[in-house]
């Protein structure tokens, strides 16, 4: 234990240096400012700003990069709450209740709660990394492809809970998302799938393109049709901070979300993406009145935001201890470390303790700074809603165009976003929801890859799901949930739970 405190002290001695502190601040600030642009999520923000960190010394650069990451993540939540556009898969959940809260004049409370939940989760997750990173390393390696497949199946089941309206339609949207995720060249055989001879989309469609289209542009089109609805958002500003009652409601969801996120973030293969969805499902199940969810329940912001941030943080564990990037952001981090001749993996701890502990200390400082930067900014963000909508939406359109273009420097992506905007508009008219579609889109690709890996490893034997106990356990759980849902007694209750 004294060793633990020595390490922490070493870390802070590095991170609290004037230069590193200001780099951390700068990173958080730029990350927030770019991440808050609609359509620009953490991956896009980091790949845009990565070159900024290439100069300078390794520790400072990584601290700044980590700051950009947290900033972008929080900025993404801000956009999700204010204008209903998720910058990444994990903030899809935040749009559900966060934007509803904004519409009710509670944007300040939603933003404030998101910042506080993120800070709490970030603090706990940092402690987890500092104290348990090394023992937890083994845990990640327990999961084999068969187990991941089962986890994804369970995740897709949870997605149904995201539905505000008809369950059948929600399932149809999840499946449509899965179908869309298969567009492009097949990873295993190289066959083109659903590209209809159009090579440009061989690599598949970017998440940001789909999210911007079906969420962002479709939302604008909906607002243009009903001027009454959109004006509600800007006329009522309300409190800037959550009330005591809202705090009380949020504490347990934050704790549970943090636990879930910290656990799922450890799993390589982007387990963290499930965290906010799982948190939302659990909170909706546990709530006394589940019908509040989707209509501005603060637990629906607090829990998932905590889960999101905890997962984002513990995702550093496989990176730092094994040199394995669990998601796209961490892959970028490896790139950034390589350019400074740092080798992510167990040696970083033994050979570069200053860097390792300095980075961990700066993670916590980064979270603190986000709180410091963002609580005052909440007032500013909320005031942005006062901008007349006739000026706001053209601005959103321009930011989206620049953001989407900058992800791949490719005008085709911008064009595709317009196409998905039309798709999203049609979906709204047909009363289909976009959130389940996006989750299906994100999980679909993993689902198929893991299934095929598991089957290739077992040489075609489905008994592999029996042999892998984790997989078996999760598939059994999924089955049980299905059976409970199908039982006549509970069905009656579910109708009231899920329908408007």
């Amino acid at each position, binding site marked *: 234990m004294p060793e633990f405190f020595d390490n922490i002290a070493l870390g802070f001695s590095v991170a609290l240096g004037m230069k590193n502190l200001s780099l951390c601040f700068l990173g958080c600030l730029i990350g927030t400012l770019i991440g808050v642009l609609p359509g620009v999520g953490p991956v896009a923000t980091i790949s845009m700003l990565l070159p900024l960190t290439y100069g300078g010394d390794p520790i400072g650069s990584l601290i700044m990069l980590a700051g950009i990451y947290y900033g972008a993540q929080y900025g993404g939540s801000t956009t999700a709450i204010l204008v209903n556009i998720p910058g990444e898969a994990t903030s899809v959940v935040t749009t559900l209740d966060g934007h509803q809260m904004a519409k009710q004049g509670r944007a300040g409370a939603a933003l404030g709660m998101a910042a506080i939940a993120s800070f709490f989760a970030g603090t706990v997750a940092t402690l987890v990394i500092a104290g348990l990173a090394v023992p937890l390393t083994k845990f990640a390696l327990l999961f084999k492809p068969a187990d991941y497949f089962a986890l994804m199946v369970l995740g897709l089941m949870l997605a149904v809970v995201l539905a505000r309206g008809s369950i059948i339609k929600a399932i149809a949207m999840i499946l449509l998302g899965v179908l869309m995720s298969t567009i492009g060249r097949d990873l295993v055989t190289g*066959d083109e799938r659903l590209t209809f001879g159009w090579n440009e989309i061989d690599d598949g469609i970017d998440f940001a393109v789909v999210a911007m289209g079906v969420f962002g542009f479709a939302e604008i089109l909906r607002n243009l049709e009903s001027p009454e609805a959109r004006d509600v958002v800007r006329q009522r500003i309300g409190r800037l901070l959550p009330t005591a009652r809202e705090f009380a409601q949020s504490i347990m969801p934050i704790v549970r979300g943090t636990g879930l996120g910290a656990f799922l973030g450890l799993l390589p293969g982007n387990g963290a993406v499930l965290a906010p969805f799982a948190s939302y499902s659990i909170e909706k199940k546990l709530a006394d009145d589940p019908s509040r969810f989707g209509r501005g329940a603060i637990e629906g912001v607090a829990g998932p935001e905590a889960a999101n941030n905890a997962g984002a943080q513990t995702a550093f564990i496989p990176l730092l201890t094994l040199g394995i990037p669990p998601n796209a952001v961490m892959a970028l981090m490896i790139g950034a470390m390589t350019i400074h001749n740092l080798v992510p993996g167990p040696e970083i701890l033994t050979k570069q303790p200053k860097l390792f502990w300095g980075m961990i200390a700066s993670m916590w400082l980064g979270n603190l700074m986000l709180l410091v930067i963002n609580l005052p900014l909440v007032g500013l963000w909320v005031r942005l809603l006062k901008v007349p909508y006739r000026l706001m*939406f*053209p601005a959103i359109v321009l930011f989206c165009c620049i953001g989407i273009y900058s992800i791949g420097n490719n005008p085709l992506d911008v064009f595709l976003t317009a196409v998905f905007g039309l798709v999203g508009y049609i979906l709204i008219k047909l009363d289909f929801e976009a959130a389940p579609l996006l989750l299906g889109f994100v999980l679909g690709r993993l689902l198929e890859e893991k299934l095929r890996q598991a089957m290739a490893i077992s040489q075609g034997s489905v008994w592999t799901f029996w042999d892998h106990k984790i997989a078996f356990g999760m598939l059994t759980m999924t089955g049980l949930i299905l059976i409970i849902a199908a039982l006549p007694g509970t069905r009656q209750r579910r109708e009231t739970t899920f329908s408007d």
Partner: protein
Amino acid sequence: MATDGPDAPRTARIPRDVVAGMVLLLIAIGAWFGLRDLPAFDKSAIGPGLLPKTVATLIGALGLMILALGLGAGRERLERFSFRGPLFVLGAVGLFAVTIRPLGLVVAGPLAVAFSAFGDRNSRPFEVVVFAIVLSALCILLFKYILRLPIPLAPFYLGY
């Protein structure tokens, strides 16, 4: 435009879910057509066709179900589609895509802002033009000069 009147969106006579079910069916059929050559099983392993074909089939089945429910008890009617919003907003995005590389942000930026602004019936032409220019200038400053993103500025004049 008639569809943009104060009482918009008006409704058509068809039950909404009938159309919803039909759209899903069409997607399923389209997907099957696109996937027809891909085997579901490849030697002993799972082939490229298995998952998408299964999913497409399920989408079709759900489509039929939604269609049937809509025919039976679909009280909700399909809302009219408006043309103004999609035309100007999505048109502006398309314009940006077409102009950004040959003409750069100097042209594509104001164009996208101004064109999309007309998606709103209440837009004021003078205000829109000023706003478009100011906003684009700010974006150029931020993205091009502060963040140094490789987004074209005015290739016809500057070469980048």
